[in-house]
C-alpha cells in the first residue's frame, strides 16, 4: 500500500506547486479494473493507485497531454513557466521515455517521471481476470526492476534473478521456412486491422500511419491477407531498435496474435548486431547512424 500513498502524496505536491499541469497514473475504474488516470486537481490525487495490475504503458499519453498544454498556452496566455506533465512509469515504460526524447517528441525536462520499482504485473491484468496468480510473460523474464530514468523513485527495487533466453522464439526458428509461413499466415489471417496494437504502442507516433493511407501504394484498405502481413511486418520493422518490450500490443490484440514474437526477434537481432538496447540511453536507433568499427555487421555475403 505504501507505494499508492507515496504516489498520491507526490501527485498532490506536484499539482499544488503548479510544477505540472497533469499527472498521468492509474486508478480503479467503476467496475473494479485498474485503468489509466489523468489528475489535474490536487484533491483528485487520492484516485491514484498502484497495484499489480497497472499494466498499461502510460507514455503514449504524455505527447497528447503536452500538446493540449501548448494549445491553451498558445491561445494568448503568456505562459512563462515551462509547464510539465508527470507520468508514472514501470521500468519497461521508462525506456520508452528515452526513445521518445531521442526522437524529439518531447524534451526530457518537459516530463516529470515518477518511477516505480516494479515487482511484476499479474497475468490477465486490465481485463479483470487477475485471478490466475502468475506474472505476465514479459515480467517473468524481466530482471530490470528499476526504471532507467526517473525524477523520483517510489519503492525499493529488489534484485531479481530472471533470464531472458528468448526461448519463445526458438519454437519458431526450429521450424522449416514453409512451416513458419503456415504459422504466420494462420496468425495474420485472424487480424481484423483494428489497429489497437498501433494505438497502444508508445513508439507508433506517426500523424497518419503509412498503412492507413488511401494511396494504396503500400497496402490497400481491404483486409486481404498479404496486406495484413505487410502491415504487421512493416510495423515490426519500424520498431526494430525502438521497441522497449512493454508487450501492450499483444495484450490488447482482440484476436490474440503473438505480435511480441516479431518485436522480440528483432530486439535480439539488433542487440546482437549493434549492442543497442532500445531506450537504455536516449540514442537514435542504430539503423540510421553510420557503421562504426565494432558493429557486428560486415555484410558481404
Amino acid at each position: 500500500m505504501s507505494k499508492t500513498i507515496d504516489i498520491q502524496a507526490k501527485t498532490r505536491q506536484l499539482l499544488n506547486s503548479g510544477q505540472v499541469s497533469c499527472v498521468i497514473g492509474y486508478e480503479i475504474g467503476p467496475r473494479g479494473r485498474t485503468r489509466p488516470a489523468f489528475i489535474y486537481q490536487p484533491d483528485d490525487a487520492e484516485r491514484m493507485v498502484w497495484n499489480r495490475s497497472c499494466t498499461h504503458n502510460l507514455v503514449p499519453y504524455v505527447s497528447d497531454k503536452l500538446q493540449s498544454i501548448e494549445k491553451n498556452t498558445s491561445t494568448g496566455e503568456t505562459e512563462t513557466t515551462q509547464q510539465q506533465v508527470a507520468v508514472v512509469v514501470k521500468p519497461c515504460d521508462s525506456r520508452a521515455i528515452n526513445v521518445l526524447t531521442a526522437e524529439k517528441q518531447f524534451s526530457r525536462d518537459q516530463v516529470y517521471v515518477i518511477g516505480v520499482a516494479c515487482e511484476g504485473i499479474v497475468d490477465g491484468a486490465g481485463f479483470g481476470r487477475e485471478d490466475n496468480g502468475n506474472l505476465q510473460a514479459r515480467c517473468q523474464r524481466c530482471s530490470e526492476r528499476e526504471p532507467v530514468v526517473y525524477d523520483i523513485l517510489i519503492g525499493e527495487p529488489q534484485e531479481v534473478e530472471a533470464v531472458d533466453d528468448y526461448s519463445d522464439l526458438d519454437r519458431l526458428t526450429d521450424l522449416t521456412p514453409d512451416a513458419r509461413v503456415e504459422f504466420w499466415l494462420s496468425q495474420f489471417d485472424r487480424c481484423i486491422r483494428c489497429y489497437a496494437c498501433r494505438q497502444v504502442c508508445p513508439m507508433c507516433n506517426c500523424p497518419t500511419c503509412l498503412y492507413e493511407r488511401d494511396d494504396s501504394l503500400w497496402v490497400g484498405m481491404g483486409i486481404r491477407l498479404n496486406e495484413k502481413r505487410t502491415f504487421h511486418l512493416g510495423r515490426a520493422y519500424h520498431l526494430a531498435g525502438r521497441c522497449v518490450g512493454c508487450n501492450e500490443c499483444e495484450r490488447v490484440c482482440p484476436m490474440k496474435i503473438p505480435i511480441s514474437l516479431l518485436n522480440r526477434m528483432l530486439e535480439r537481432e539488433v542487440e546482437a548486431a549493434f549492442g543497442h538496447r532500445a531506450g537504455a540511453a536516449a540514442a537514435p536507433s542504430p539503423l540510421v547512424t553510420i557503421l562504426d568499427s565494432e558493429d557486428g555487421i560486415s555484410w558481404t555475403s
Partner: protein
Amino acid sequence: MASVGRHPNINLMAYSEVEHISGYIGNFDVRVHRKPRYIDASVCTGCSKCTEVCPVDTLNPFDMNLGTRKAVYRHSAQAVPGSYTIEKLGVAPCRNACPTDQRAQGYIALVREKRYADAYWAIRREHPFPSVCGRVCNHQCEDACSRGKYDEPVNIMGIKRFVSDWAFANRDELPEMRDKSLVGTPFVHEPVSTGKKVAIIGAGPAGLTAALDLVRLGHSVKVYDSSPIAGGMMRVGIPPHRMPDELLDWEIEQILNEGIELQLNTRIDDIPGLLESGYDGVLVATGAHRVKKLAIRNSNHPQNWLSLDLLKRIALGEEIDLSGKKVVVLGGGNVALDVARTAIRLGQPEVSIACLESRGEMPGFDWEIGVAEEEGIRLFPGRTFKEIVVENEHVVGVRCVEVEFRGFKGGQPDMDEIPGSDHVLPADLVIWAIGQGPDFSFLPPDGSVHIRYPIGVVTDDEMMTSLPGVFCAGDVRRGMTFFVVDAIGEGHHVARCIDRYLRGENGLKEPYQQDVVELSVEDIETRITDGRASNQPRVPISCIPLEERLNNFREVDLTLTEEQALTEAERCLGCGLCSECLECVAACEIGAIHHDMQDELVDLKVGAIILATGFQDFDPSVAPEFGYGRLNNVITAMEFERMINPSGPTGGEVLLKNGKPPKSVAILQCIGSRSEQYNSHCSRVCCMYSLKIAQLVHDYVNAEVHEIYRDMRTVSGGYEAFFNRTKQAGVNFYHGQVTEVEKKNGRLVVSWDESYYNEPDHVAVDMVILATGFEPRDDVGQVASTFSVSRSPNGFFLERHPKLAPVETATDGIYLAGACQSPMDIPDCVAQAGGAVAVALSMIDQGTIALEPSIAAVETLYCAGCGQCVAACPYLAIEITDGVAVVNEYSCKGCGTCAAVCPNKAMKLIHYSDQQIVAEMIGALNLSVTPEEVT
C-alpha cells in the same frame, strides 16, 4: 617551374595536403593541412648557411637515397618555392622526459661531429649547470631513450659530463657563445633591455636559472643569498668526491657575466619592502635546507649532527677528523649516502646507514648504495629509531626496532613494528639525513604569502604566490627535495611566468609540444643497418680504484674519454631526425628559422578540383630474381637518372660501387609490368625511356649497351625514328623475357628466354639498369576516398568514361589528369592537363551550373518530427524546426537515404519517389510473356 611560383593567380601551397572536401560542383569546401617547414618561406633567401652548421645527415629521397642531405634541406636545386625546410619527425623521447626540456639529441649530434664547443653552447643555451647534471642527475632521459628498447640506453649523462669537462679544460680558447637569445625567442645579438627589475632570493639551481633566463629576456636581475657561497644545494649539498666545485664556480661565474648582480651573506626578511624599493618582481627560490629530525629522546644531544651542516663545513673547506669514531647516519636517501661517503673519508671511521625502507626500496640511487658498501659502509635497512641512547652525557648508540614498511601515507610512515626486534646500534656520532623542508622564517610574518605548512609556498598556475608580483619556484614551493634537474625546470618555467607578468601579452608563451617520436624495434634495426647508428654496446662510467679513495675527496667517477664519448654518440638513433641543436637559428642571419612552428588548417572554397597526384615507381626489391638490393650495381632507372644528372649525388658520373665507370651495361625492360605476380598493366613509357638511357650511357659513359626487351612499343610520333637512331648508335638489342640476374665470377649475368631469334640467351655486364614500371601511389586508396573517386582494377583513378570522358570522374566538378589516371609519358600528361583545364573552364565559365532537381522533399502532413532522417543524412542537410523536418536545398545531394529510413514515408526523393519505383517494379515483374518456347 619558376613561373608557377610568381604567377599572381596561383596560390602555391607546397608541403601541404588536402585533408577533407565536401559540397558539390561549383561549391566545394576544401580543408588543406599545411605542414610546418619550421622556416618562414617568405623570409628565407635560400643562402644555405643553415646547412653548413647542421650536424644531422640523412638519406636524400630526391636522389633515390644515393646521396645524403642535412636535416635542414632544400628539396632540389631548382626548388620552387626555394625556401629551405627542416624535417622533424617529432620530439625526441629524451627531450620529452627531461624536466628542463633539454635537447639531448642536439648536443649528442654535435659531439658526434667532434664539435665540442658548439655542443657545450648548445647545452648552455637551455641548461646553465651541465657539470652538475652531468654527474648527479637522475637522468630520466636515459630511462626514456629509444635505444633502451634494442639493447641499452645511450649514456646521455656521460656525454653531457664529457662536454662540460672538455669545455672547462679548454675554457680559455673557448669561442664566444654565438647565440645567447633564449630558446623560443628570435635570434638577437644582445638582449633588448625592458627596463624591468627583478629580485631573486636564493642563488640555487632554480634561482640562478630564472635569473639567467630573465637577463636574456632583457630584464635586470639581482640575486640575494644568505649563505657565503652561491649554488645552493649544488654547492653545499653535493660533496667534492661527487662534484669538484671549481666546475660549478666557473658555471656560476659565466651566469653572472651575463649581467646578473649577486649579493651573498644577505638574508632578506622584508619581501614587500623589495617591491616598494623599485623591484617590479620578486622570486623566492630558497630551496629546502632545514634538516628534519625525529622527536625522540636525546635527539637534541650535541652529538647529533645535521646532514647539511657537515656537508656545508666540508664545502667551505673545514678540516674534520672522525678517525676512531662510530658514525651512524639515519636515513636512506641520496643525501644520507653523500653524508656517509663523506664521513668515511674523514679518517676512516666506522660508518653505517640505518633507514626505514628495506634494502630494495631505499630512495637513494641503487648504483651509489653498492658503491657505498664497497667503500666499507654497513647498511641497517628496514628499522625505525626509538631513542638516542646516552650514557654519562655521551651518545653510545641508537635504539631501533625492525619494521615492515609500506611507504608514506599523507606524510606519515605506514609500517608495523616487528615485536621483539628491539636492539641498539653502537654509535658515538649520529648524523640526521631523513629529509629536509623549506625554512619559512624569512616570509612576511603577516602571512600575506600563503604557505601549506610544512610542505611549501602556495602558488597559482602562473607560479605567483598570494602576494602579487612575488613568485616562487624550486624545492621551497614543492616541499619534497627533488633533483637539481627539476629545480632548473621550475626555474625556466617561473622565468616565463615572470616575463608574462612583466610584459603582458608579448611575454614569452609556453613552448608548443609536438608529439613524441615512438620508434618501433624494426625502425631501430633499420637505422642501425643503414649505418645511421652504430651497433656498439653502452660504454659504462668507470671510477677510480677503491684504494685511491681513502681519506681524500678526489672525484670517484671518471669522465668519458673522447673515444668513449664518440662511440656513445655514435649509438644515438637520432629519433627526431632534426636534433634541435638550434645551431641553424643563430646561423640564419635573417632570422627565418622558428623551431616551434605549428601545423595550419586552411579552408578554401573552389568551383572545380583537378587531381594530378601522379604515380610511384615499382619497387624491384620485391622481385628477388632481378637481384635489386641483393647484388651490387643493380640499379633502377631513376637511380641512373640521378647519377647522370650533373646536380645529382655523383655530379653526372655513372659509377659502379667500386667507383669506376662500367664498361658494359644491360637495360632490362618491363620490370614489374605486364606480369602476373606484380602489375598486370603495361606502363607505356619504359620502352622509350630505356632507349633514352641506352643513348645516354652510350654517349656519356661510352660503355657497351645491351637492351633486353619484350616488345618495343613506339606508340607515338618520332618514337620509331628514336628507336632506329638508338639501333644505329650501336646499342645491342635482344628480344626476350628476363628470367634472372646472377653474379658469376665478378660480373652480372643476365639470362632470358622466349627469344624470337634464338640469339644468345644471356649476357655478362658490369651494371644492370632495371626499367621499372609505374604503379599507383601507396596511399591512393585514402586519396580516392577523400575525393570519393572510384578506382580501376589496376588501382589508378577511374575516369567517367574511357572514350567519351577520359579526364572527368563520376563526380561532376572533380577531374583527373596525368599518370594518376593511368601510366603515360610527359606529352600525354601535358595534353591531359590541357583537357582537364578545358573541361573545368567549360563548367566554370557558365557562371551558374544546372544541378539535377532530384533532391529530398518533405510532406509535412505526414512528418512526426522523429529525426531519424536527420541522423541518416550523410550531408547534415536536414533539420527539425517546430516539430517538422526541413531539407536544406543546397546541401542535399539527392542520395535518398532519408527517404528510405523515414518510417512514415513523409520524406520523398524527387524523380525517385516511392510511387515511381513501385510502378517501375510492377512493370519489371509483370513478366506477362513467359518464354514457354525456350529451347
